[in-house]
């Protein structure tokens, strides 16, 4: 009996030693000499491994930083300037300040704004629906609402709003890694400069159709009328492809364009209420709500209000017969500017908030 124990112990010990020796040589052979700075850089990175920098993960990014001669093209959106400064310090390079950015959804085609013209059935991803056809509305540019962007977001910064069928961004969670921009088959999401208090002004539409056609698709489409372009005192707005585009770097957030837009296509978010009584419209919308709730809460409120105001239309819409409501609204919008604003006190704010 004791023999067996002895032999077992001896053979196991020998085996162990043998394995250790082999392992040692293997480790020697495959040893990779790595720049220790890679570890150092990786250490200060946020370890989100989101790929927002354009590299597969934090370590490859660290390697790229160490290899690079300058940090011009290298930026970690999650860590931002702070982290990049540290990286620069480790490597003895110049940090390039980048403006913090945030994702915005350039589509307001909610159920209310955009009539559904077919029903989509099948795999629940935007990529597939996009490949198949225009989607369940006529707009070939607008949001498909199946949430590929939400699935792509690693930071819980995107959610699908069930009321509108559109995604919305939680500004404070967004690190501008760009995953959603990549994921969206329609290029709706844009990374824009992050302003003070997360204020944003942007044209929330990318429909390149001519005005009339665009409006058929969607009540709040940009029709390329260039009113905003004319009113902008800072030349921040450019026109092209029947669309207005606001350059977030040039925009001074004066909000003049928002007022003139005949289709409510320009969104202003996180602004304090307006002073002029004439411009009730945005005032109602922009209470100083903390950004996180800003989109979700009013959406609910808006929906409730809408029910109260246009109960009948709502019912009809439920039956997917929203054409009458649609037409009425467009008639209203087609009216003169001032008239519209007067009327708008009733309906427009919710629309705006509801998006």
């Amino acid at each position, binding site marked *: 009996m004791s023999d067996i124990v002895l032999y077992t112990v001896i053979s196991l010990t020998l085996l162990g030693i043998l394995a250790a020796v082999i392992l040692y040589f293997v480790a020697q052979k495959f040893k990779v000499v790595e720049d220790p700075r890679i570890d150092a850089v990786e250490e200060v990175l946020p370890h989100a491994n989101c790929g927002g920098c354009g590299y597969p993960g934090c370590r490859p990014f660290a390697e790229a930083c160490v290899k690079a001669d300058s940090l011009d093209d290298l930026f970690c959106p999650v860590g931002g300037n702070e982290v990049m400064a540290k990286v620069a310090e480790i490597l003895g390079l110049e940090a390039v300040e980048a403006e913090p950015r945030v994702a915005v959804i350039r589509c307001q085609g909610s159920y209310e704004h955009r009539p*559904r*013209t*077919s*029903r*989509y*059935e*099948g*795999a629940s991803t935007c990529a*597939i629906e996009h490949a*198949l*056809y225009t989607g*369940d509305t006529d707009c070939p540019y607008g949001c498909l609402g199946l949430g590929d962007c939400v699935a792509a977001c690693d930071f819980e910064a995107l959610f699908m709003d069930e009321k509108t069928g559109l995604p919305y961004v939680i500004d404070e969670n967004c690190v501008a890694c760009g995953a959603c921009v990549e994921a969206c088959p329609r290029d709706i999401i844009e990374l824009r400069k992050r302003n003070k208090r997360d204020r944003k002004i942007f044209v929330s539409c990318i429909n390149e159709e001519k005005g009339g056609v665009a409006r058929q698709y969607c009540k709040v489409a940009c029709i390329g009328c260039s009113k905003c372009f004319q009113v902008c005192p800072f030349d921040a707005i450019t026109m092209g492809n029947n669309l207005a585009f606001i350059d977030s770097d040039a925009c001074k957030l004066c909000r003049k364009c928002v007022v003139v837009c005949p289709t409510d296509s320009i969104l202003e978010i996180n602004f304090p209420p307006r002073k002029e009584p004439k411009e009730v419209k945005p005032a109602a919308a922009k209470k100083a709500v903390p950004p996180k709730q800003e989109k979700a809460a009013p959406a609910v409120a808006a929906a409730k209000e809408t029910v109260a105001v246009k109960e009948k239309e709502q019912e009809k819409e439920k039956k*997917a*017969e929203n054409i009458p409501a649609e037409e009425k609204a467009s008639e209203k919008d087609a009216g003169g500017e001032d008239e519209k604003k007067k009327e708008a006190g009733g309906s427009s704010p919710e629309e705006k908030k509801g998006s």
Partner: protein
Amino acid sequence: MDKLLTVSMSPHAHGRDTTPKLMLGVVIALLPAWAASVWFFGWGALYVPVLSVLFSVIFEYLIAKYLLKKEPSIRDGSAVVTGLLLAFTLPVNIPVWILAIGTLVAIGVGKMSFGGLGTNPFNPALVGRVFLFISFPVQMTSWPLPKGFATADAVTGATPLGLLKEGMRQGEHVANMVRELPTNYDMFMGHMGGSMGEVAAVALLLGFLYLLWRRIITWHIPVTILTTVFLFSGLMWLINPADNASPVFHLLSGGLMLGAIFMATDYVTSPMTPQGMVWYGVGIGLLTVIIRRWGAYPEGVQFAILIMNAFVPLINMYVKPKRFGEVKKNG
């Protein structure tokens, strides 16, 4: 047009098969064997499977609803099949409380703990059966001998395989034991001790034909298992008939037919490609004979199937179907 058209990707047609229909097909295929066991073992064979099915369905429902908190999917009928198969591997005089434990293990551990239908690596019915076999060896090996419809108190005894193993352990020659063992014809018709569903090979084969006709399963797995068992045991028998039972005996005894036709072909736990199925069948056949001949237990089918279940992901990974246009490319 006031109604909206539906748009989806092709195809716009769908075949008639659905999961519940396939499961129902398996149940129908099991009916002849069930009828046979009622014939042999009396009324007990009627209500034990019913109870087993009830337990399975209830457990699946409860676990899905309260533990996994998802929509219970008993509609798919897989719990019915699991319950029925489990009952078929048990002796008819099984106490109800053991049956309840068996179904709980089969459904709870064998299936739901992996996430429900489609994700379990091991055949749930066999998991339940093996658990009972190990936990309650006494109850699980007192096989009632078929005494026909009339007798209520069945006499219990060993299965032919049990007799064989016992005999061999005592060093007896197989040739001498033949007298104690049932004849091939008796075994084919089901006149032997054993679990409820396994005794009548003829009824099981009927079920097999039905499954093939309905295209619920393909021939690959059952046929390769049975051929492998036949060839391998036949080889050993030819080499040394004194120590080995005849291949026909191997084919007809124990749970081989039930296992090969109904257990090994379980969709979830069998390979996906015809080629893989052949490998899997050969593996089960070899292991069965090895366990029967050299293992500690008289019967090896269940263990063989469970062992091969573990290899299925590997088989799926490496055994690929023949791709169209592949041969030409290489030569």
